[in-house]
């Protein structure tokens, strides 16, 4: 087998892994959009906030310590304990549910029946607020996140591929874990949405508020639930990305990578978010590998957006989105 093809295969696999991470972020968007019609610009910041909170709790950081020290002239930073990863993840989830409640109670409850663009603007506001709030609460420095997920080259794949091709593939253990977790998450979400009482109620709310009320569904309860779910997906994405590249402000920018994924997959489709993520992940890695050297590289920065643009022209509803039919 020619070397080029073997390299391409490795690039392809790495692309799939990167795609899974994109899909994870895109999932959060799709969830909220399906259930409330809100395009949640704050999803990326939600992931950052979740990761910050997780690190903060694990390291026993005192929340708002800078603020407290500045006001009272004290010098406290740490409680001096360390919380085990699993407990910290559960505590972070409690914080995310509380955040979901607050977001609904103080913002979206008051915007029922408003135009989608108004709701969208509200999420932009929320994104900026959360960004600042996260900074004040946990500090702006880059943090290392380690919840005990294995990292580094997967030796089994390395050896097996070396045996076959005479060249060992470099696949990161973390990426394999991310794939596994994402698959679990998606299966759980689909089962939840299709077969559970609350999932059915969630779909009902997404479809028609009035009708949902008339069968006894509380809109507030469902919205808090949906934001909590989005918070949960954000936490998972935050853990994966945070472990990979550290918890820092740029984590919130992964939201921008989710946009082309959504345009490809369609804003209303959970399978679409997955497939869209994989296509973008594989596409940008292969493109960089094949075309990159000819144009001076760095194609990964723009490839996804150009692909999304092409989709907007030829298939605006995305691969799996609901077909847009305008009745006149």
């Amino acid at each position, binding site marked *: 087998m020619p070397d080029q093809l073997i390299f391409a295969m490795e690039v392809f696999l790495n692309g799939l892994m990167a795609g899974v991470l994109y899909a994870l972020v895109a999932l959060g968007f799709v969830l909220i959009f399906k259930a409330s019609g809100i395009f949640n610009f704050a999803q990326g910041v939600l992931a950052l906030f979740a990761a910050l909170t997780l690190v903060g709790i694990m390291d026993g950081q005192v929340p708002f310590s800078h603020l407290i020290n500045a006001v009272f002239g004290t010098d406290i930073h740490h409680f001096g304990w360390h919380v085990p990863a699993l407990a910290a993840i559960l505590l972070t989830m409690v914080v995310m549910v509380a955040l979901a409640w607050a977001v609904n109670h103080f913002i979206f409850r008051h915007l029922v029946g408003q135009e989608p663009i108004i709701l969208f603007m509200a999420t932009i506001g929320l994104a900026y607020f959360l960004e600042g709030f996260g900074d004040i609460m946990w500090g702006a420095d880059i943090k290392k996140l380690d919840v005990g997920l294995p990292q580094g080259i997967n030796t089994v794949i390395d050896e097996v591929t070396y045996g076959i091709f005479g060249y060992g593939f470099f696949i990161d253990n973390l990426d394999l874990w991310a794939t596994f977790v994402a698959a679990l998450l998606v299966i759980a979400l689909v089962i939840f949405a299709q*077969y559970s*009482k609350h999932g*059915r109620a969630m779909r009902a709310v997404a479809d028609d508020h009035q009708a*949902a*009320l*008339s069968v*006894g569904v509380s809109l507030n309860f469902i919205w808090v639930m949906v934001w909590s779910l989005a918070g949960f997906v954000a936490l998972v994405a935050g853990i994966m990305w945070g472990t990979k590249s550290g918890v820092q402000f740029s984590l919130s920018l992964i939201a921008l990578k989710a946009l082309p994924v959504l345009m490809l997959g369609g804003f209303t489709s959970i399978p679409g978010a997955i497939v869209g993520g994989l296509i973008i992940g594989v596409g940008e890695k292969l493109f960089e590998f094949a075309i990159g050297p000819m144009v001076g590289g760095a194609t990964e920065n723009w490839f996804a957006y150009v692909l999304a643009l092409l989709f907007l022209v030829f298939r605006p509803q995305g691969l799996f989105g*609901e077909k847009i039919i305008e009745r006149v």
Partner: protein
Amino acid sequence: MKDMDAEGYTTEDGRKIGGVLMEMRNITLRFGGVVAIEDISFDIREGEIRAIIGPNGAGKSSMLNVISGFYNPQEGEVWYKGAKRPHMKPYQVAQQGIARTFQNIALFEGMTVLDNVMTGRIRQMSAGMFAQALWKGRAEAEETENRAAVEKVIDFLEIQHIRKTPVGRLPYGLKKRVELARALAAEPSILLLDEPMAGMNVEEKEDMSRFILDVNDEFGTTIALIEHDMGVVMDLSDRVVVMDYGKKIGDGSPDEVRKNQAVIDAYLGVAHD
């Protein structure tokens, strides 16, 4: 009305009607300076078909929205099953067993007929999120039970052939029937129908009338309906409230209402002086 008392009465076709299930006491509803409902009182008795009629803009829909909790009246009290109902949200009213349909149909267009009717059972599903997630014991039994109830309603309203069709693709008349099925699936104490025949042709109207009578007969469901088609209402209902400009101008059996001068004036139109 024959033998009207606290225990109930007997209809002209010999059905026994029970005691008061719901009572509206001096309801007044305003939107800003506009008075939609002015000091209206009436009751709905167990097992009867009660109609609220009146010309356009009489306040019928507002009244239905008060009953189902979508509007809260500024004055007056709603009594339900012998107790005064506190301020409630629509979903809480629904959970109390008051199901409704809408004049402009409010179905979940993206879901199938079966899924739509299943949402009617949300009130009956009590197994928590985690029990359901684990899909064990009670949740499973409950799901089976709910499916059985839903299939019964689907059978009853003769919509088996479209069970798996997305509602968005159905014609208007069938949508109305699916909406009725969803309300019935909730096994309501009171079924509220907002203009169930609006926009239907004669054949569809006859079908719908038959279903309404059958529902009342088969399940003993108390039905309150709004309609402005006088003919249909008179054939269907046991007692009729007539509204005009937000006021009650008549209340009684169809025959009594038909002879009421104020009602005749409202429908045929006389000069107001």
